[in-house]
């Protein structure tokens, strides 16, 4: 990276995440002025307009792409209309060790005196909890599921290429056409459509004005600027900001600025999950790149510099602070913008191009938290692309993650997307598939697959609270076969899924009614054509997801019960329940039996993997295909973010040997320490799941640097990926362990049971080596000697 980028990067990574009350104040002002006087979509649009016309405009020293969500880098706004924090929340945010946000005295004052008085009791969070039944609340508090919309807006979508072909003046024309087409005589929805479309028009003007203000600021700065080069840059910025987003971008640089303004629009309008995302960025940028390289108006270095400036913009926007359970299920600063590289073109051919490789270089150089990145690997993409990505992955940041583009397309097709829409889609957030630019694929919350078993084993009661939150499915001591237990589990699972979906339907209705997103709706088809908001089912495709957590753990738990209680009859159900109730105290022998002499998922052992499949099918059957109130369809995903830790904390001791409160397995990975036959066995087990019936699965693999060293190491990674994807695996990501991790493993071996290191011509579990040898390997890892 060059000096300019280095400086901007430094500014980004050293800025301290803090709260800005600017947005909250402006939103409150707008509501005070307009609420009750105009329709809700227009209210939201006028609110958006008010913010865009009045928020502080930021142009930092040396920047080429401009615009911040808040008044500066890492300045994070609040969204009181979604979730009005208490003063206590603010204090916690400020003081907490992890994922803190500093709250200055001035901000606290504003919040206390202006924000809380207006929003207390009025936020979406308040509305939601008011509508949730006591039954739902019991489940929520018990940790059966989480609720995504209790602090943040639905969102969770990605841009397609329309903003590179059309500007907001063009969108205005489309909106006006839709307005003209309203059949006031016969359409029952005429009024709603009219208001939504009016709101969209207001938003178009607002974003254009927002950009113009940047142009004005740039000119102001240019006047003062002594350095002639910078003066010229500022004048260029001014020109660009007065051209996009009103008009479609004409070149590479304008394309990036166009996207960035839209991104800011989406995340300023609402606090959407997974912010927003440019999607298939290499596909969108390539036409510009190709043209300008041929014309000589762009060179590779300049393109890279612009991309790196673009990159930093994402890193300046931490995910707005979460509190409570939402913090626990997603305890991170990253806002999950996940840029896709590679994949196939709309015609199905190999989409890898020069910009794809350029992006990989940018990732490698930048080494910052945001944006996330992934590669979409199709059978049509060359091995060289996978290997180049492997080089970056090997550096240890965990990006890019790797997706099976062909599986993604099949998943989308199964859900009913057209072939072209499927090919133009990809994955976002962690691992979720979507038809970019055309789909509302909203996540509704995580689901604790393991706690369901706990409830089953207590005939509907949550032993943690003594409350009966499940149904009566029979006393487990009376089950005569494993199948009876499994039946009971399925019944409990259905019971809880139903409660979750009922709650979801209500929340979906509330959002459709009270919190539309007219700005975002402009750029997602077919909201304009339908005159319907993204949050009300206006998109071409509408999906709702429930994310299953802990499938590795539950597979092992069921395997243990089947094996020890029903097959080998090593202990009775009664004894098992006693052991679990005691949290294994006084029963270490039995715990070791469960841990070490039981078939476990992740070892390509059909006995345990069959258990995984039974749970998977039960979950799938309970969720997949159910309709949502605004016309969407329910699907499942298998990812945890950080929720496996939270869910573990509310779940008691389990038959797989896990102690009460310990984390569950993450993603679709085996339980930590359960996989004893290497990565090929893990992949074989994971492949038995029918990925194509999900909207995404998450698999983590850890390797020490030596295993992936040299040309052979890269080839091995590539082969592993291709093999997994041949088996229709959806996603894999690699964590390459460094010396610090090994040192930690020395001090805390129980945390690293499956850490395998290359010793000499073989590999071994790090825990099995004596300290001298561990030291030697640590030294070797640091110095990269043989």
């Amino acid at each position, binding site marked *: 990276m060059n000096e300019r980028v280095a400086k901007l990067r430094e500014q980004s990574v050293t800025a301290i995440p803090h709260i800005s009350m600017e947005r909250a104040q402006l939103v409150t002002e707008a509501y005070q002025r307009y609420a009750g006087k105009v329709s809700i979509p227009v209210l939201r649009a006028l609110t958006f307009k008010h913010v865009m016309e009045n928020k502080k405009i930021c142009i930092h020293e040396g920047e080429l792409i401009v615009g911040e969500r808040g008044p500066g880098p890492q300045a994070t706004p609040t969204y009181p209309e979604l979730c009005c924090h208490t003063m206590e929340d603010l204090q916690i945010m400020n003081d907490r060790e992890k994922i803190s946000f500093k709250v200055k005295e001035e901000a606290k004052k504003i919040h206390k005196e202006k924000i809380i008085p207006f929003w207390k009791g009025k936020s979406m969070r308040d509305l939601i909890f008011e509508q949730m039944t006591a039954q739902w609340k019991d489940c929520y508090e018990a940790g059966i599921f989480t609720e995504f919309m209790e602090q943040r807006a639905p969102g969770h979508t990605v841009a397609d290429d329309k903003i590179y072909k059309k500007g907001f003046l063009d969108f205005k024309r489309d909106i006006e056409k839709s307005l003209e087409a309203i059949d006031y005589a016969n359409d029952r929805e005429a009024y709603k459509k009219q208001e939504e479309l009016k709101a969209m028009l207001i938003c178009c003007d607002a974003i254009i004005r927002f950009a113009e203000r940047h142009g004005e600021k740039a000119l102001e700065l240019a006047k003062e600027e002594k350095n002639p080069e910078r003066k010229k840059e500022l004048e260029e910025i001014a020109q660009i900001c007065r051209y996009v987003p009103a008009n479609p971008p004409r070149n590479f640089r304008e394309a990036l600025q166009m996207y960035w303004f839209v991104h800011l629009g989406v995340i300023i309008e609402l606090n959407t999950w997974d912010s927003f995302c440019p999607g298939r960025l290499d596909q969108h940028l390539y036409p510009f790149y190709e043209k300008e390289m041929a014309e000589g108006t762009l060179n590779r270095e300049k393109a890279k510099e612009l991309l790196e400036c673009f990159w930093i913009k994402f890193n300046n926007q931490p995910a707005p602070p979460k509190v409570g359970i939402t913090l626990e299920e997603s305890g991170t600063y990253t806002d999950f913008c996940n840029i896709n590289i590679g994949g196939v073109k709309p015609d199905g051919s190999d989409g890898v191009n020069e910009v794809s490789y350029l992006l990989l270089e940018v990732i490698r150089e930048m080494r910052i938290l945001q944006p996330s990145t992934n590669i979409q690997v199709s059978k049509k993409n060359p091995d060289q692309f996978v290997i180049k990505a492997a080089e970056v992955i090997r550096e240890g940041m965990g990006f890019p993650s790797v997706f099976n583009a062909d599986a993604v397309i099949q998943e989308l097709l199964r859900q009913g997307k057209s072939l072209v829409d499927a090919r133009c889609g990809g994955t976002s957030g962690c691992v979720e598939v979507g038809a970019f630019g055309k789909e509302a694929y909203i996540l509704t919350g995580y689901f604790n697959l393991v706690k369901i078993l706990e409830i089953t084993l207590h005939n509907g009661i949550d032993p943690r609270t003594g409350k009966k939150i499940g149904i009566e499915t029979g006393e487990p001591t009376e089950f005569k076969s494993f199948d009876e237990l499994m039946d009971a589990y399925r019944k409990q699972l259905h019971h809880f899924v139903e409660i979750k979906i009922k709650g979801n339907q209500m929340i979906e209705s509330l959002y459709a009614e009270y919190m539309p997103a007219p700005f975002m709706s402009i750029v997602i088809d077919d909201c304009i054509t339908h005159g319907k908001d993204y949050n009300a089912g206006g998109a071409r495709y509408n999906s709702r997801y429930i994310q299953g957590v802990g499938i590795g753990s539950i597979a092992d738990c069921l395997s243990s019960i089947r094996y020890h209680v029903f097959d080998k009859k090593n202990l009775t159900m009664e004894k098992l329940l006693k052991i679990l109730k005691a949290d294994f105290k006084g029963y270490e022998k039995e715990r070791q039996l469960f841990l070490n002499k039981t078939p476990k998922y992740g070892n390509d052992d059909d006995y345990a993997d069959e258990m995984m499949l039974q749970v998977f099918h039960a979950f799938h059957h309970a969720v997949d295909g159910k309709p949502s109130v605004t016309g969407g369809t329910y699907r499942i995903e298998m990812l945890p973010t950080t929720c496996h830790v939270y869910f573990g904390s509310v779940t008691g001791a389990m038959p797989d040997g896990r102690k009460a409160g310990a984390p569950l397995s993450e993603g679709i990975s085996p339980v930590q320490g359960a996989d004893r036959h290497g990565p090929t066995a893990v992949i074989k087990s994971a492949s038995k799941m029918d990925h194509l019936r999900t909207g995404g699965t998450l698999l983590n693999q850890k390797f020490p640097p030596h295993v992936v060293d040299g040309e052979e190491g890269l080839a*091995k990674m590539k*082969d592993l990926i291709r093999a997994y994807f*041949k088996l229709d695996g959806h996603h894999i990501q690699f964590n390459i362990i460094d010396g610090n991790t090994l040192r930690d493993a020395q001090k805390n071996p129980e945390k690293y049971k499956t850490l395998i290191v290359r010793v000499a*011509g073989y590999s071994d579990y790090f825990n099995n080596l004596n300290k*001298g040898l561990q030291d030697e390997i640590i030294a070797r890892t640091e110095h990269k000697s*043989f």
Partner: protein
Amino acid sequence: MIGRMVTAGEVMEEIEKDRVFYEESGGGVTFSGGEPLMQPGFLHALLSKCKERKIHTALDTSGYVSWETLSRISANVDLFLYDIKHTDDRRHMELTGVSNRQIFHNLKNLAGAGKKIWIRVPVMPGLNDDQENMLKIADLMHALNLKDIFLLPYHRIATDKYGRLGRVYLLSDLQTPSDEYMHGTVERLSAYGLNVKIGG
């Protein structure tokens, strides 16, 4: 005894589990030990079955068996990982307790039959790492038209296992070869036109 009795069929079932990975990577099964040729019948059964199923086979061996035994299975071995410890017969006797004549006789026959062979040399400081030995190995490889050599530097990892087994480690004074020495040897052998790798 640590380990268990298995049939060739059981082993093949285990091998088949990773087929998708062999197919993607061009990899396969490596038979190692101990000395796999100490179980020639079993090895022969496994190698034949692998070849029947088009799975690539590699054999990691010291070569210290009769030619009859070796030749019986060699047709089903795609790649030999063949150890050479010392080219001087007397020194070989001192270090290992056996002569190297049969080992080299077998090697010459395998090379003559056009088999793919990677030579592996454990590098033991002061014992077999003298330049003369190294050059003789290079000469031999030249004569047999072999190109690939892996130098395995002595390591003290076994001290850990000996400790755990409650046995005395007799080479407690032997140190690992220096980086300098290893790289020097690599250079010298490369100058001979060989593909030299450290480790593996």
